[in-house]
């Protein structure tokens, strides 16, 4: 792997959100729960939204994907972190672009600790989530 440096830009991913994908994500659960993600009436009642919203954890997964691809599976799967703050929900029809930039590197006992700023942006250029991810690269 090439040396990781501050200001390195991670290859981004772009995902189009559909209600089918939102519901598939909910189907991973072990409880059969109706919520703001899979039930339009609950989304309307609780959020006053016309559509269910995607779980923010889908954005966590997208962020995990770009970090994993950048630092490598072994590093990410055993030392990765993702912290996201949600700014605006994703709904069906949205396309989210998830990008990242290395903002810090630090040699620690177990390797190089890499810190990445993460940004999720919808098709209108609005930020939907921001945060950081880290991983230790040996």
């Amino acid at each position, binding site marked *: 792997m090439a040396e990781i440096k501050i200001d390195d830009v991670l290859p981004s991913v772009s*995902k189009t959100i559909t209600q089918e*994908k*939102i519901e*598939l*994500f*909910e*189907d*991973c*659960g*072990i*409880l059969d*729960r109706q*919520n*703001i993600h899979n039930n339009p009436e*609950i989304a309307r009642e*609780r*959020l*006053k*939204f016309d559509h269910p919203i995607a*779980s*923010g*954890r*889908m954005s*966590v*997964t*997208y962020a*995990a*994907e770009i970090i*994993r691809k950048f630092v490598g*599976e072994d590093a*990410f*799967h*055993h*030392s*990765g*972190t*993702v*912290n*996201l*703050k*949600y700014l*605006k*929900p994703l709904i069906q029809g949205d396309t989210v672009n998830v990008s990242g930039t290395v903002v810090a590197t630090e040699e620690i006992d177990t390797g190089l600790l890499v810190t990445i700023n993460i940004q999720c942006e919808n098709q209108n250029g609005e930020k939907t989530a921001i*945060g950081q991810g880290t991983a230790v690269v040996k």
Partner: protein
Amino acid sequence: MSEESLKDFVYDNVVIGETLGTYSYVLTEEMLDTFRKAVEDPEARFPTLGVKHDATAFAMVYDDKVGTVNAGNEVEFFNPPIPGKKIIVTGKIQDKYTKRDNPYIVIEATAEDEDGRLIEKLRTYQIKKPEVLGKKWQK
């Protein structure tokens, strides 16, 4: 779990450090496949994110009639889960606070597998006034 055995969620009664107990389930290949399709990533290894360990722990204890919206998540990955293995999850209320007059709780869940491999630690910042975020997001 039957709904009769759930406690009504009352924000003021929640105590920081309160345990949400322990539960287990077997992670299946089907769950992994479903997760990968949902996020369009055939190499994704943590379908546990879709299981929502912390929210599940909370839902096994509380009947929350108000509902919630997640304001943020913090996830630490330690080892990818292995399909076919039992996953054991322990949850707790990690924090509780008010910010701009809105009530928040932080739920934390730690997962390990039947062999004692640490899988994932997850924290969710939940706002217990979903209509506030709904209104803000509509702007």
